[in-house]
Every structure is written in C-alpha cells, then in structure tokens.
C-alpha cells in the first residue's frame, strides 16, 4: 500500500486515558524513543489529584503531552496535533486542547454505554459528526490487543493492561520512531517474566504493523533530528534536576547535604529522590512538619552541612519565621518552593506563580532573602546550584522558585561534568585569634562560618538582634539600624556576583516582554514568532528576582512599552514598578495552567496596535 511520508518541524502529541491505562508509562517510552532519534523535546504529565478516582470518570483522566521537533523546543507545546484517547472521558477532557484539524486516535472499544455516560456523552462522538473538524481514527485497540495475544493463555486482566503498548506502537509507526528502546526496556523491566515480555512485545509490534498495513492510515510523519549542542544527554524532570543540583553543589562545596523536608505536592519528589542517595553524602530527614523541615536544615547548616528544605506555597508560609531566623543567624540555607495553585490548599496539582511576593517580602521585620527562579526543567539544576553558591558565599538563605509545571515536566539535559562545575568550597574558621562571630568579609559582607567542634571558637548565635562584630545581644538603637542596613547591603552586593541581564532581540524598541520562571518558553516562542513577523518586540527573562541584575533599569528604559505576563495577578510587575518607576502592563491569567504562546502573541499584537 502507498503511504505518504510528510516532513514536519514540530509535533505535539498527548496520550490520555484512565489513571489505570498506563498513559505516563506510554508517554515516557515515547519520550525515550524520541530522544533516541535526536529530536529536541519537552514533556508534561497531567494527572488527577485523586489517587484512585473511579474508572472511566472525568476526574480519573491522566495524560502525558510531548512536544518534539527538529528545532529548539522550549515548552511541552500549546495545543496538541495528535490526541490519543483510551476512553471517552479522556476525549472529553482534552479535546479542547487539540488543534483544529488535529488527529484523534481513539480506542473505539471503550466508547461503550457506561463509559460514554461517565464522560457525559449522550451519544458516541466517534459515530456522530461532532468531531468533523478533526481527523478521527477509531481503532478497536482492546480487540486487536486480545487477538494478538489469544494463544498466550493470559488472564483477561493482563491482556487488557498491555493495550497501551498497542497505542504506543501505532504512534511509533505514525511518527517514525524506533521500537528498539522500548523493546529493550520491556526485556529489562519484566526480566524473568517471559510471558509478559512476549505479550508486551507482540502488542507493541501489532500496533506498529496496524499502522503499516491498515488502509485508514495513509500518512506518516518524519521529524528530523534537532541541532543540539554536542554531548551526552538524558531526560530529566524539574524536581529531579533540583535534587541533583543540590547534590552537585554539596559535592563541589565538599559538604554533606542535609535535606529537612515534609511531604507536599508537587515538591515531594525532591525528598524522595534525595532519599535514595545515602551513599552520596546525602542525609534526608522527613520531619514532623514544615517548620521542623526548615529548622532542622538550619541546625544542620549550623553544624557545617549544606542545609536545604523543599516545599510548596502552604509550606513556605509555615517556614516564614524560620527563614527570618536564618537571615538573622546568617547561615547558608537553600529553600526550594515548587509553586502550586493557591491560596490556602488551592490547586495542589496545578501550576501558578503566585508565591513571588511571599518569597521576596513575606517575613516579619526587614529580612531580605535572595530569590532565584528556574525557567525550565533542566534550569532547575543550574538555578539550585547557583542558589547554593550564593548561600555559601554570602552566608544567607536563598529561595529557589520552581513550579508544578517545570517540576513535573521533562526535557533533554546535557549532562555536566562535575569537575567542570564551579568550586563552592567554603572556608570554616579555625583560628581563634581575632575571631568574632559577626566579623565580615569586607567584599561580600558575609560573616565567618565557625562550626561546633572547633576548639576555642565557642560562641552563641540566635534570633535576637546581634551587636555588630561580637554577635552579643544588643538593644542599642544605632546598632540595630546598622545591622539592618548591613544585612540588606550584603544581599544587594550579590548583584556584583551575577551576570548582567541579556535581552533577546533588539536592545531597544516598541515593546519589551519581561518574564520570570516557567513562562519563559511560551514567552520566548511568542516573541520569536512576532519578531519573525517584523514587530519591534524583545524579550527579557529574569532568573534573579532578588536582587535584580544591575542593568535591568537601563534595559527597561529603552522600550516604549513593557509587558509582564505572569500566572498571578501581577507580582513581578509590582517590584519593577516600585524599583524603576516604569509604566509596565501586566498580562495575568491564573487558571492553574501555563500560558500558551498564542495567548502571549495576541497580547503582544494588542499592545503594539495600541502603540
């Protein structure tokens, strides 16, 4: 049969089904095969907050989206080009996310009475004309799976569990992905269970063959390898990258890593990940609450470890007082906030950027803390490493902001050489001669780090105001003012230690879009699109929120208009207006979802038109 192959630059596929349909696994395998081909990619899982929502229900839908291409990929994709659905609920939930004219591959066997009813369909959408705007492939995936395995004598339950491999095989055919990485994975994963290996292998191949031989599939797509910087790559999620960033920093600082933590969505994976590495100089402490999570980390830092704690918004609120203590004690500490929808319990599994002001300002008294934000899953590694560097060098707590979107999302990571990462080794004071707990480095204003166990340096620190240099308790009014300003100056000094900000696009023009955190990819794509259309628009992305880089004010002054898109009601914009007196305009959508590039593009058009 004649099949046409089309070359395309970029594709977004979403696999969606019931929580029990193995969609995360399917997506993960597709990702590995795609990385194998050499495409750039970004992925995003989306799963229900409920652990076991009823089968077939809308609440129980789990999905995995992957965006891959021959060019640089910065987001898991806005709308999908192809939607694979294992049941009607999955179709119902994600159809709105499919682009006009996109493909739907549906397991027709699951579009029966009960499942249709659970999804709220009155009639079968695969059989009426409601999907006329899409390319629909209704495939009897369950039956075809059963046929492929009928001579194997497996229980119907086990047979049913392999059907996701049929869908995977079919998409491998459609997008011309190699089956070998998955076949290898099956052999390793199910080693010793020959019947399961045989079943999964057969079903994967059956799916692939179905695409090859059936007449309904006439087109397959080819996505050429992307031009990525050379080196060894792996796929990594934001939370993994954060955990590894901490480990790399501790390694390069020659310190033990201590993580004090309390489970909270979507940050728990960082604790889980680090708890695996007992033999890497990592100690994890699952504390009784968020407060003990941070205070134990402060105790560990006091003892000479790299103390860290991780949490999400509600937990950051609970850690507030202890963060102030760390400011006063001037001890290194890395605080990771994987932001989620708020306020209160909010939307635990959804993404948001609404903790920015909490991170920058949310403490009693004048308690400045550096705040850095990661912009992508792999950037979580760099940002956490950078935060550790600053924490150790300036003897200060540092907050790292990530969010649910990049924490769970994954992308290829150019694996760094540990030995090529900067040396972060701190100097512990050992000489009692001239020692004073609050004596400072004249350059950085960081105080000395003297750890218990060092003879002759016995001293006391605490949350009461310190006398300059001696660290004794002091109620002196002028001393208090001096200490407040010194602590502030120390944080401001960090601007001398971080690179200048760079604008993408022209250094001046009609419009500058300023972003921070996980909106990076969407904003970057939108600005690129608009620049290609000839609009005078540039992009400034901020990793350093506090302190801001030295040249931000100058950059902002070179543009007629400034747009600040944020997944909150306008938080960075408050800081920019406050610091630089600029008439910036916010673009704020708080839906628990990342921005799409199209939304930003529309806003850019609107701003440029208005002039």
């Amino acid at each position, binding site marked *: 049969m004649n099949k046409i192959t089309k070359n395309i630059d970029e594709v977004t596929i979403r696999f969606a089904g019931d929580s029990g349909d193995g969609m995360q696994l399917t997506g993960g395998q597709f990702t*590995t095969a795609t*990385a194998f081909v*050499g495409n750039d990619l970004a992925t995003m899982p989306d799963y229900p907050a409920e652990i076991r929502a009823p089968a077939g229900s809308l609440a129980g839908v789990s999905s995995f989206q992957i965006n891959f291409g021959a060019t640089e990929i910065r987001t898991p994709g806005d709308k999908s080009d192809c939607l694979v659905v294992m049941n009607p609920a999955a179709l119902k939930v994600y159809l709105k996310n499919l682009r006009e004219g996109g493909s739907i591959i549906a397991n027709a066997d699951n579009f029966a009475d009960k499942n249709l009813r659970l999804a709220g369909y009155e009639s079968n959408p695969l059989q009426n004309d409601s999907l006329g705007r899409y390319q629909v492939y209704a495939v009897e995936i369950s039956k075809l799976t059963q046929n492929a395995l009928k001579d194997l004598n497996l229980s119907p339950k086990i047979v049913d569990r392999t059907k996701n491999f049929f869908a995977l095989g079919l998409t491998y055919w459609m997008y011309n992905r190699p089956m070998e990485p998955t076949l290898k994975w099956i052999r390793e994963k199910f080693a010793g269970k020959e019947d399961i290996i045989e079943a999964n292998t057969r079903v994967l191949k059956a799916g692939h063959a179905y695409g090859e031989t059936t007449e309904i599939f006439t087109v397959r797509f080819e996505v050429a390898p992307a031009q*990525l*910087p*050379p*080196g*060894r*790559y*792996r*796929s990594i999620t934001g939370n993994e990258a954060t955990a*590894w960033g901490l*480990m*790399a920093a501790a*390694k390069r600082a020659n310190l*033990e890593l*201590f993580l004090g933590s309390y489970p909270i969505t979507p940050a728990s994976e960082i604790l889980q990940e680090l708890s695996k*590495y*007992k*033999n*890497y100089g990592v*100690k994890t*402490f699952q*504390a*009784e*609450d968020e*407060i*003990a999570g941070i*205070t*134990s*980390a*402060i*105790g*560990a830092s*006091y*003892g*000479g*470890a790299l*103390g860290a704690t991780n949490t999400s918004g509600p937990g950051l609120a609970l850690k507030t*007082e*202890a963060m*102030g*203590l760390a400011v006063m004690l001037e001890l290194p500490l890395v605080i990771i906030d994987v932001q989620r929808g708020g306020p209160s319990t909010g939307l635990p599994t959804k993404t948001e950027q609404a903790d920015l002001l909490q991170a920058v300002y949310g403490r009693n008294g004048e308690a400045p803390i550096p705040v850095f934000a990661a912009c992508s899953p792999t950037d979580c590694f760099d940002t956490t490493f950078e935060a550790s560097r600053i924490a150790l060098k300036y003897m200060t707590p540092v907050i790292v902001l990530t969010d649910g979107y990049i924490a769970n999302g994954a992308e290829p990571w150019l*694996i*760094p*050489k*540990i030995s090529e990462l900067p040396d972060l080794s701190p100097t512990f004071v050992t000489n009692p001669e001239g020692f004073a707990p609050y004596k400072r480095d004249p350059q950085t204003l960081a105080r000395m780090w003297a750890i*218990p*166990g060092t*003879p002759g*340096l*016995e*001293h*006391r*620190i*605490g*949350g*009461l105001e310190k006398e300059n240099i001696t660290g*004794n*308790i002091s109620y002196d009014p002028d001393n208090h003012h001096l200490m407040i300003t010194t602590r502030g100056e120390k944080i401001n000094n960090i601007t001398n230690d971080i690179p200048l900000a760079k604008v993408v696009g022209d250094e001046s023009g009609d419009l500058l879009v300023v972003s921070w955190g996980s909106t990076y990819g969407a904003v970057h794509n939108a600005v690129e699109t608009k620049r290609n259309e000839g609009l005078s628009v540039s992009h400034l992305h901020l990793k350093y929120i506090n302190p801001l880089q030295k040249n931000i004010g100058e950059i902002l002054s070179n543009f007629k208009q400034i747009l600040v898109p944020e997944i909150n009601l306008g938080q960075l914009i408050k800081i920019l207006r406050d610091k630089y007196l600029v008439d910036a305009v916010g673009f704020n959508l708080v839906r628990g979802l990342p921005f799409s590039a199209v939304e930003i593009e529309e806003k850019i058009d609107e701003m440029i038109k208005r002039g």
Partner: protein
Amino acid sequence: MNTIPIYTTKDFQSDQDVRWCPGCGDYSILAQTQRVFPELGIPKEKVVFVSGIGCSSRFPYYMNTYGFHGIHGRAAAIASGLKIARPDLSVWVATGDGDGMSIGGNHFIHACRRNIGLKILLFNNQIYGLTKGQFSPTSLQGQVTKSTPFGNIDHPFNPLSLALGAQATFVARTLDRDPKHMQTVIKRAAAHNGTAFVEIYQNCNVFNDGAFELWTEKDSKDDNVVVLENGKPLIFGKNKDKGIRLNGFTPEVVSLTDGKYTTGDLIVHNEKDSMLAFILAGMSGIPNLPRPVGVVYAVEKPTYEQLMQSQIDEVATKKRTGDLEKLFNRGETWEVK
C-alpha cells in the same frame, strides 16, 4: 591523641551577664549544669546548647560552649538537624513548659519517638514568665493567671507521662532546690544514649512563686517526695516510715510502722520497666501520693543517628560510595554529535 583538658566550673561560664530575675530557679539549673559539665568527659567545643524562646531559652548565652538561641518552640527540631548532621556533638536543649510543651509540643514528642541523641532539659515553672504571667500547658486547673482571671479551665500536661507516651528512652524529674539531686540526674542524662528528657521543677518567683513549695521546701519535702532509686523500694517520709505499694495497678501510700506492711510489700523501682514508669509518672497530680523524683525510666534503644549511620554504611557497602558523575550518566542516555 588529643586528651580532654581538665575543666573547672569556670570554663563553662560565658562572659555574658546573667539576666534572670533575682531568685529565679533558673540560676540553680545553670549552676548545677556548669558544675557537672567538667565531669562529663566531653571536650567543651563538642557541646552545643540549643534553645527556643522564653526565660529558660536564654540558657545558651550563659554557657561557654557553642550555643544556638532559636525561635519559639523549635529548639528540638533545630537540635535534631544538628545532631543528625553532626552525631559527634553533645547536643542539649534548654526549654520551658510553654516553649517545649505548647508551641513546640510537636517537635518534642517526635524527638522522643525517634530517640535522637538530644538531652532535653525542661524548665517547668507552670507559667509563661517572659511574656509576664499567662498560663502554660502545665499550669494547674483553676490557677489564676493574667490570662485566666477566673481560673484556668485547661487540664495540664504531665510532662513525664507525655514523654513516656512519646516513647522517650530516658525520663527523669528533678528539683531546682535540690542541687545534688539535679547534678546526679544531669549526669545520668548526659550518659544516656538517645533522647534524654529531664523535667526540672523550677520556681518562677515573680509570676508563680511557690508552685512547687510542697516538694522543694525542707518542712514538707520529705513527706511529699519519693526519691526513685533503681532496685530500691519506694520509701519516703521524714522518718522513712512510709512506702508505696501497688493495689492492683493503683499505687497507694502505706505505713511501715503499723505492722500491716513491710518493705517487702513495696514497689521496687526498676528503671527498665515501662509499665511501672507509666504508673510512677501518673502519680503526679494525684492527691495524697508523693511526687516521684529521679530517673523514672531508662532503657537502651538504637538512636536515630545510629540507625541512619548504619543504613548509610549498609548502602555504601552494597553500592559503594556514590559517584555523582556516574549517577548522572546512568540509565537512558544518548549522545549528540
């Protein structure tokens, strides 16, 4: 080999002025601690005092060791992180009934449960002193304080029972007015492997003066306090003429002179008996029963930090010392040329 210098009490006194109210029971606790420390055989630089907030929590400033004055209630959590990171240190927590039983109650019970090697000294004065006289979680029911002008309606915690319920492995009580006894108990706590909890009856002469009079003053003490000694029967009274026996599971006071009971009928203290420990702790607050002081319970159990270290050793033996570079390159990777 480094030998531990010979210390005197002075070596443990810092250069800071002590700022408790004159007559405060805290002075005695500080004095006994400073007296005992030279005998513990621990190098001074290995000692850390961690505290929260309250009168008691000023303690670290006055000890010439490493000291950490934390935030309200969190001393046990700070100290836990320190002890886990640095098992070589001797980590002490100075806390009060408000700091340790109220705002820090959660950290306290979890430290006990984990058996982290912390020595927790609870300065119990049954009142909030530093905030000037509100009731605390150990204040008595009916107690009139600044925030309970019509009498306290809360039921008080019994710190010993709380610690036992939280599975502490060392639970003791001592009195600010009995220096010798306190020294003995502090030494025992220091020697204990794991969480050691010491409740110290401490008089707040400004906001709750005389709260423990019955058990600390010469005239009444002997008839109202039973001093626990391991392996010995529970005898008390000015003339050593009274004892405690168990009637079923209920302790009762019996006379040793009326011919009905002899020493052989009395409870013999056994520090390792957890059931007995609950009974002894429960004697507090029951009218007509003397207050037990001394080591109520002391058993050896692996400590949190020991268990963590053996897990680290086990994993390191099985998987060798981790190589980060190898970890990063493990699993599914691919080369871009």
